[in-house]
């Protein structure tokens, strides 16, 4: 059924596949940029990925004017301001982000400051607060999970005041995303598993939350299919370029889906688990997904039943009685979690992830005020969240 109204916006150009990085110099030229700053982190440098990117500019007219390699796991105002100084000092005209969610969010934050000409990014916190077209931003994801290369969101921590500042605007979307199989090859098995489950959660929630629409459905559907076909294989054999590339595509499509249709209770509770108990986002998503699906079951049985097709393929789907398909989808995800635990020690319960029962109250208080709680199709109360946490413990 089509929604009464929907919006879908994804102008990000995607260059994907073998030697996609080598197209970057040409693309920068098209954007009128010559002197980018590269924002990345130490892990990327240590893995030799920065070198691959720099080599891709050999014999081009692009001059990398500055490189920032110190992005921490959580983007912060201080780091954004530090990079902004570097950007101005070296007369940069564009930004290349190489990394995972934190690097990409940091790059988006830097872009807000340098494009809006402000010295206080907090003025632009909230939805649709940006007014100025942003500088060219190219994103090279090195994980396959966040989908940040195609989302209109950035979250920057205000460490001093202990709050996370959300920014959402169509203007935040990068101009170009580069999906090059070389960039995710070195990802460890556990992170591959966690980020893959993050992408799966994006896709499942995008397909089932309030603003699902034909375009987000198409993206979410294919993302789920690619993840179910390739995640476990990649975790078991990380050197397979084909499956790595499939996951990178799945993550990007899931990102495009949820950036438009939004996410729901899994994310609301997962964000709170991260804030209170520092559980990595992908781990929290993986643990909570089947429990929230159980919670939403009476509202979403039909949609969960549909998802069995991309999850298990046509043959198994056809062999499953229609009345059992929704339950089979949840069972498949539980089974996938168990296999990822065996293959990469990805936690399957909150207790394994280090959460303590005493933290439930604080987690539920934060989750109920999370922006992702509202698009969840079923009303969620604090009591419901406590019960989900208890079940997932």
């Amino acid at each position, binding site marked *: 059924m089509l929604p009464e*109204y929907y919006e879908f916006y994804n102008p990000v150009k995607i260059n994907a596949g073998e030697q996609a990085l080598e197209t970057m110099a040409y693309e920068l030229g098209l954007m009128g940029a010559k002197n980018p700053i590269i924002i990345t982190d130490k892990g990327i440098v240590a893995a030799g990925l920065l070198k691959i990117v720099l080599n891709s500019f050999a014999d081009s007219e692009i001059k990398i004017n500055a490189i920032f390699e110190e992005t921490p796991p959580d983007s912060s105002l201080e780091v954004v301001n530090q990079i902004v100084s570097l950007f101005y000092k070296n007369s940069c005209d564009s930004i290349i982000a190489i990394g995972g969610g934190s690097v990409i969010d940091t790059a988006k934050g830097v872009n807000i400051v340098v494009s809006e000409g402000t010295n206080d990014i907090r003025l632009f916190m909230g939805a649709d607060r940006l007014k100025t077209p942003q500088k060219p931003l190219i994103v090279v994801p090195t994980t396959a999970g966040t989908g940040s290369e195609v989302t209109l969101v950035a979250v920057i921590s205000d460490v001093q005041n202990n709050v996370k500042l959300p920014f959402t605007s169509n203007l935040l979307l990068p101009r170009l995303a580069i999906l090059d199989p070389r960039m995710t090859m070195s990802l460890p098995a556990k992170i591959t598993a966690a980020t893959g489950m993050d992408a799966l959660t994006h896709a499942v929630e995008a397909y089932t*939350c309030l*603003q699902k629409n034909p375009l987000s459905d198409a993206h979410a559907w294919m993302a789920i299919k690619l993840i179910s076909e390739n995640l476990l294989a990649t975790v078991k054999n990380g050197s397979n370029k084909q499956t790595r590339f499939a996951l990178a595509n799945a993550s990007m499509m899931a990102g495009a889906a949820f950036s438009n249709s939004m996410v729901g209770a899994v994310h609301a509770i997962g964000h709170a688990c991260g804030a209170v108990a520092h559980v990595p986002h992908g781990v929290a998503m993986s643990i909570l997904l089947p429990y929230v699906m159980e919670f939403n079951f009476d509202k979403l049985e039909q949609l969960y039943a549909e998802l069995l097709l991309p999850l298990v393929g046509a043959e198994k789907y056809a062999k499953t009685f229609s009345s059992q398909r929704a339950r089979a989808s949840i069972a498949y995800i539980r089974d996938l979690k168990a296999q990822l635990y065996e293959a990469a020690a990805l936690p399957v319960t909150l207790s394994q992830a280090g959460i303590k029962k005493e933290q439930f109250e604080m987690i539920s208080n934060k989750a109920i005020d999370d922006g992702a709680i*509202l*698009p969840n*199709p079923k*009303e969620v109360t604090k009591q419901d969240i406590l019960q989900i946490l208890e079940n997932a413990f």
Partner: protein
Amino acid sequence: MTNLFTTLSNGFSPVSLLTKKAVVKTGFFALGRVLEYLSYADESIKAEHENWPEGYKFYMKVLPKGPSLSMEKKGEKMVFLGTKELDKADMVVEVKNIDTAFKMITAQLGAHHVYAQHKIGVIGNVSDSMKLIRMIYAAEDYMFPPVMSKNVLKNVEDFSVQRLIKRFRVLIFGLVLKK
């Protein structure tokens, strides 16, 4: 009644625009008064704003030139300040057009749908806006008869005599008498 609102929603003449503005303004007035009453008379709503500091202000504004619903925390309650926007506020919720506001106020569109459809923007703290939306839900649950509130709420409480009495109390003391 619902048919009349639907017909008006689809109209584009200057008359229908004025009518929509008038209906939204009246609706905001009613919602503001009910919210004020519930902000101290209903424990669940009281809990939503109890951590907001004294003098916390917000307004919900219809873009580009529609009415607003403005409130301020004073003591234990949220006081309705009227249907004009404030010079300064801690949180601003912008409804992107009068048609969306009209549908919200006539129980054709729930706040969760409006949010999901990107038809509102929030300036300020997102978690505060979640609290506000829950407060509006609760107010709408009292203001609209179940046949209408099922359009705008994810969960409609079952009918009970107690609930009916409470609804009348809210409408009489909150809306009419402004106690």
